[in-house]
């Protein structure tokens, strides 16, 4: 769930930034998105977004694994 959340917030944020660029430079939304995404100086930003997603996903995966283990253990104990 957290990975989904992070992804949602990140994409909403990117849309916001593109929108503001649109206002400031007076260009179309498509062009603003293009400038935002395909600019080599922005690569560190996308690395950070990727890291945030990875962190959230890792946490999720870890939690899921723990839950599975706990369920298995409960099943074993019940036997």
């Amino acid at each position, binding site marked *: 769930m957290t990975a989904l959340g992070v992804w949602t917030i990140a994409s*909403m*944020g990117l849309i916001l930034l593109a929108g503001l660029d649109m*206002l400031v430079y007076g260009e179309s939304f498509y062009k603003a998105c293009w400038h935002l995404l395909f600019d080599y100086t922005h690569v560190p930003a996308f690395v950070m977004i990727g890291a945030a997603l990875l962190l959230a996903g890792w946490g999720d995966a870890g939690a899921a694994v723990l839950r599975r283990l706990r369920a298995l253990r409960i099943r074993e104990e019940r036997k």
Partner: protein
Amino acid sequence: MNVVHGYTLLLVFLLGTSIIFGPPRLAPDAWLVELIAVVPAGALFLLFVGLAAAGNGGNLFDMLDKAWGRTIGRMWTLCYIVYFLYIASRNVRDMIELVMTSILRATPPSVLIFMFVLVIAYAASGGIAATGRLSVLIAALVGFFFFALALLLVFSGSVDTERLLPFLSEGLAKVLVVPLKSSIWFPYGELVVFLVFCSSFGTARTFRRTGWLAMISACLLLTFSDLLQTSVLGMENIVFSIFPLLDAARMISIFNFITRLDALVALLIILGVLVKCAVFVHAATIGASRTFGRHRRFAFSSALLVGAFSILVTHNNAEHFEEGLKYVIYWLHIPAQLVIPAATLMLLRIRYRKGEREHEPRRLHDRLEPNRTRRGRADA
């Protein structure tokens, strides 16, 4: 959270960046603008307090859910989360610009931003009470260094009060209108983020009192800072200066021994922005864990997003400023700080003033909801 902690948190929050950036340059006698701005800002704050009181101890996101219903409330929550992260990233960008101007010129900004973001993540993963205690330390440091700067400026003879004249050269009307255009939204309007924490202040009454006290102290300190900057730099120069406090600090020269105190200003802004961003990321984390299931790791991810946004925000500093002065105010600050809270307050009053009739259908709804939240909890 203690009253003292709350007060210093609000104070550091308000002073954080505005002490460096000085007055808005839209009118001369900018220090008067700062002084007058507390009046409309106070009115805005009363709106927030009203909302806090109507919310009955819940936080901003609870209020949004109550007033607008679950789906639209969730949507507003998401919008607010993105808004908070955006402001945080703007602040980080401001700070990085100053750091790169004054102390570290050649380091790539992404490295600096990444390091700062890690610190914010660490600060945000404690509770708001821990940030309150931190703000006491930081308030002491910021106060000490600011007054040291002021004293050194006086001793080095850079302060010339004649530069404050002519007084009211463009008339009083302009001075009265400018606060409505910019000062009320930054920095005072950003207090909207504290609606997320109003329950940790205690009652709405404590929130109001602490807020008032903090706003008045911040106003006085900012006016003092503006007076200082104007009397050191002069009214014409201050228009062209990006970081007036930095330029003022560069004027300090005592016996040719104590000079070039840029680093002190950098220290001030780093600490101020740290507290501001910690508060914003806290708020975003609380909102995100409400919407997407409880998870404490949201703090780190949110902080990383802040870092990412601060690189993506603008290409250069000029664009950053223009965006900040015009578009952000109209499209972001006014809706988020005025329109939506006012609408929420009105909706809350309407819905709950109608009395018990509104409560029955909502209770059925509440009884249906536990199933949904239980499933949500299992997923978390």
